[in-house]
């Protein structure tokens, strides 16, 4: 692991009027590190994720990102053009609902190839080969390359969304409840796939989930949110095996045992 953080988050707060979205969140994220943000609905975890991914402007706070060149840039001071470029090259965003992250009316191949074309790739054959390789990596049969995601199951759509995000070799991926709407068996397959890709590619990931099993399986580190604030954070094993805060203990003790 590199000895310099990829992301420095300092005092990020988002207010909706007088209502708190998230409040005074600070942390560092290192390359290759997977951070899970957990908490119940309304705890502010998605608001925080959207602030970090610059899909939402925080009310106060500062997030610095280490660019590929090694220099730190303040995300909220960047121009739209730079930020959008970052979002389609060096970053990924995996939505809970694949329809939000895919183009449902273009083929699977074009969904994966779009980012390549966006960064100037102009060779059809190469784009198609790369798209085909990525479909294989996410376990979608290559003969489905010309089918539209409308014809795919929920699990396939989600895997397609992941391929679409990873094709430009991003260094940081945001995930919002990536297994949210899926059946348990489909979830397991997706989690295993994501887990493998994350370690193979050395991705840094910030994943929002309310499912502690997802956090245990995917993440190195966890932040527990309640009422917009981070109430506990640390090594994932530690937070789950030895929760300190009352709310975290409640969360952990509420997991259904099979």
């Amino acid at each position, binding site marked *: 692991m590199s000895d310099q953080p990829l992301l420095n988050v300092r005092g990020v707060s988002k207010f909706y009027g007088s209502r708190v979205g998230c409040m005074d969140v600070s942390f560092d994220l290192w390359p290759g590190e997977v951070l899970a943000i957990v908490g119940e609905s309304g705890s502010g975890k998605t608001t925080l994720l959207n602030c970090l991914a610059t899909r939402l402007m925080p009310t106060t706070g500062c997030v610095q990102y280490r660019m590929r060149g090694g220099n730190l840039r303040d995300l909220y001071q960047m121009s*739209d*053009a730079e930020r*959008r470029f970052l979002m*389609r090259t060096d970053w990924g965003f995996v939505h809970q609902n694949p329809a939000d992250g895919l*183009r449902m*009316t*273009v*083929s699977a*191949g*074009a969904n994966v*190839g*779009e*980012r390549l*074309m*966006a*960064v100037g790739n*102009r*060779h*059809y*054959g190469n*784009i*198609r080969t790369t798209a085909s390789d990525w479909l294989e990596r996410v376990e979608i049969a290559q003969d489905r*390359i*010309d089918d539209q995601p409308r014809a795919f199951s929920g699990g396939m759509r989600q895997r397609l969304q992941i391929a679409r995000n990873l094709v430009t070799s991003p260094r940081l991926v945001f995930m919002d409840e990536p297994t949210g709407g899926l059946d348990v068996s489909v979830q397991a397959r997706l989690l295993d796939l994501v887990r493998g890709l994350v370690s193979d590619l050395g991705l840094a990931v910030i994943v929002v989930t309310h499912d502690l099993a997802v956090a245990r399986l995917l993440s190195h580190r966890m932040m527990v949110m309640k009422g917009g604030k981070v109430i506990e954070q640390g090594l994932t094993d530690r937070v789950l095996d030895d929760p300190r805060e009352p709310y975290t203990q409640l969360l952990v003790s509420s997991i259904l045992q099979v």
Partner: protein
Amino acid sequence: MTALADYNFAYLDEQTKRMIRRAILKAIAIPGYQVPFASREMPMPYGWGTGGVQVTASILGPHDVLKVIDQGADDTTNAVSIRAFFQKVANVAVTTKTSEATIIQTRHRIPEETLGVNQVLVYQVPIPEPLRFLEPRETETRQMHALEEYGLMHVKLYEDIARHGRIATTYAYPVKVAGRYVMDPSPTPKFDNPKMNQSAALQLFGAGREKRIYAVPPYTDVVSLDFEDHPFEVQTFEKPCALCGARHVYLDEVVLDDKGGRMFVCSDTDFCETRREEGHRGEMLGDIKEAAE
């Protein structure tokens, strides 16, 4: 009372013309950029060329010579109506001869004859936004233009090749203007795309329903988008025009009978007639005369 007394010259009032001219000037200054304008109600339905008519009305002077074509023809309903409209409201000279016209309003085609510096080509545009079909949000497409994010255009071409084995888009084929804005040439067949490049004539595009004007100034680079391994190509026709024998021009199919008989003739009627006046003969010409007798 003369017919003209009921109208301001060229139908639109002078304030409206100024507004449209300002939009046109801005469009010329930013080649390929879609300039919003306050499109007016015109005495014809949307889809009949209200955008082109407003542009023409705004640039028309008493000494201009106007030609109007629909497809390549001067004698179809839409072309005849618009020509008649301007004769009535501006009393300008009209022509079917490409070389004589100072302003040519068109739907679909660019004349085969190379245009000159003293000519303006006005296009009637139904849908000005090339990104529309893949990204329906206007806020998003405007931002994509602003930030020059044109990956989506190639997604469309990718889909074509994936589905048909080649770029099957034959009209409204997207172009990049002056190395910056991607522009929809509108329903023009892609056969005519090369004619837009480095044209000596000013090209103005008016979309009445969508309230947008855009332009390609004279001598501007207009490049059709493509892939390295699937380069842009225009259609080719196996046979020359059946009437005038012209090659390398855009041909229309004409059905001759109910037994599968057909011929291919120039879509540009003026071009075809001029060639026949010059003595060129296609293979079908004699046959048609005989059939008519």
